């Protein structure tokens, strides 16, 4: 890290990189960069997942996340370091809105159904019968998610698929947390209704 361009901060022998004897501007810059990396690196995957939920495609998710990171870097001086994920998600929401305004209507997420239809590969369950049953059920669930209304679908995807907290999902959707709770609950209820023909095997005697 230190001495990338051959310059070492001056300091007494044995002192660490970030000693107070570094030039103030340089030190501020390094601290800012370090803090930014510390806040942002762990959230990159979640940002991509959420951007994919919002845009429905990975290439569009890439664009939104790249713009988000550049904006976040520009705004890092005004960030107090609390709740980096919520901060980043708020920037991501605005970035996504702007990208829609720039006019790429094909980005809107009716593609999500197709993109969420599970590939027949991943398996979590133990017995072969269970795997087959899960896969068929998963395909039905993906289809049911795709047929939810947009508000419910987004809320369910963010909370139950991307595993955001309700507060984080509220930051993405720009609605109160209670609204997200209600949309998720109603979305799940609609999913269960759509899947009522797919009761667990051996269940509901």
């Amino acid at each position: 890290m230190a001495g990338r361009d051959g310059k070492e901060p001056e300091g007494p022998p044995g002192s660490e990189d970030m000693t107070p004897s570094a030039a103030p501007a340089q030190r501020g810059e390094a601290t800012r960069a370090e803090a930014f990396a510390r806040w942002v690196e762990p959230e990159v995957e979640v940002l991509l997942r959420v951007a994919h939920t919002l845009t429905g495609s990975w290439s569009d998710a890439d664009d939104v996340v790249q713009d988000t990171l550049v904006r976040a870097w520009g705004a890092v001086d005004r960030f107090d370091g609390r709740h980096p994920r919520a901060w980043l998600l708020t920037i991501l929401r605005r970035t996504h809105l702007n990208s829609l305004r720039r006019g790429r209507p094909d980005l809107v997420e009716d593609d999500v159904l197709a993109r969420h239809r599970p590939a027949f590969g991943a398996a979590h369950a133990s017995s072969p019968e269970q795997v087959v049953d899960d896969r068929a059920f998963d395909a039905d669930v993906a289809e049911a998610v795709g047929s939810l209304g947009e508000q419910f679908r987004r809320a369910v995807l963010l909370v139950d698929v991307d595993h955001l907290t309700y507060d984080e999902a509220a930051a993405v959707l720009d609605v109160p947390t209670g609204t997200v709770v209600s949309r998720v609950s109603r979305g799940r209820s609609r999913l269960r209704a759509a899947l009522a023909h797919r009761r667990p095997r051996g269940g509901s005697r």
Partner: protein
Amino acid sequence: MTRRMQGPRSMLECWWSGRVLDRYVEQQPAIPLTPAERDRLERHLSVCERCATSATERRRVLAALDRLGDQHAPPPASLRRAHDLVRDLTDGDPA
């Protein structure tokens, strides 16, 4: 073995259970159940087949949505691009 409950008392419990079951089965509810609520619900689930089945169905849908998340994992190239950008930005060299 579950027994079927009868009467208005059980209907009230079923109604109440329906309202709190999501918070019981999900990983990070907005408002977690209190220990007393959890006890009350678990007592009801142990005697009400209908609500116990509903809990199972809710868990099953949540598990399927969780598996959907695995399909939703970002491609390595996307992750790499994002991490590269963070590095470029913090290097003071915005590509």
